[in-house]
């Protein structure tokens, strides 16, 4: 069964640095998402992406964050000037078009800011 793949599985970065988290959604999916989960807490919606542009974004997704689909397969989340509180698991998800289609999540990238 096709899967959403995320790289790297773990990223350790110094505070203030920029990070890029990568995702390869399932190939015939059209909607892409990024979520954040701080350890032991709920899954928080960051942004959704459709038709090569941001569809929706949450209050968390401020100017520090950006997303891009640089080619036909990758979907990236860039975090600039990282802060300690950016440490979390970041999940990518994708789904097909149409009502009721489930989101498929990747295994996540654990981001640790030092």
């Amino acid at each position, binding site marked *: 069964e096709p899967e959403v793949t995320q790289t790297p599985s773990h990223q350790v970065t110094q505070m203030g640095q920029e990070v890029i988290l990568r995702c390869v959604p399932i190939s015939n999916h059209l909607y892409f*998402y990024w979520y954040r989960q701080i350890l032991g807490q*709920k899954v928080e919606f960051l942004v959704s992406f459709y038709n090569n542009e941001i569809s*929706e974004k949450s209050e968390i997704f401020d100017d520090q964050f950006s997303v891009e689909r640089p080619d036909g397969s990758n979907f990236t989340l860039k975090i600039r000037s990282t802060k300690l509180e950016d440490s979390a698991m970041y999940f990518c998800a994708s789904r097909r078009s149409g009502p009721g289609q*489930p*989101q498929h999540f990747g295994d996540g990238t654990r981001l640790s800011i030092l």
Partner: protein
Amino acid sequence: GQQVMQIPQYQHVQEGEDFTTYCNSSTTLSNIQWYKQRPGGHPVFLIQLVKSGEVKKQKRLTFQFGEAKKNSSLHITATQTTDVGTYFCANGDTGNQFYFGTGTSLTVIP
């Protein structure tokens, strides 16, 4: 974003006992999705409810959407150790954003 609360936050049950988690919203939900996240894993979609009063079953799992579409529940009959994990409801908004509930962490004691 919309706030979706879940209770309880934690639940410990003996294997074989039943388990229920409740999801509540102050606003009407267009639909509700349920996900399961195993420890160290990623959320896995279980089901989506759309209609007022809808009830769906998956083996030992029963999902219900309230008549007013402001609450939902997930009931597991005769829990097994494989049911361990955190269960999240998520509000599938009319747009393209999903707000997850606070989650209920289930521990099953063998």
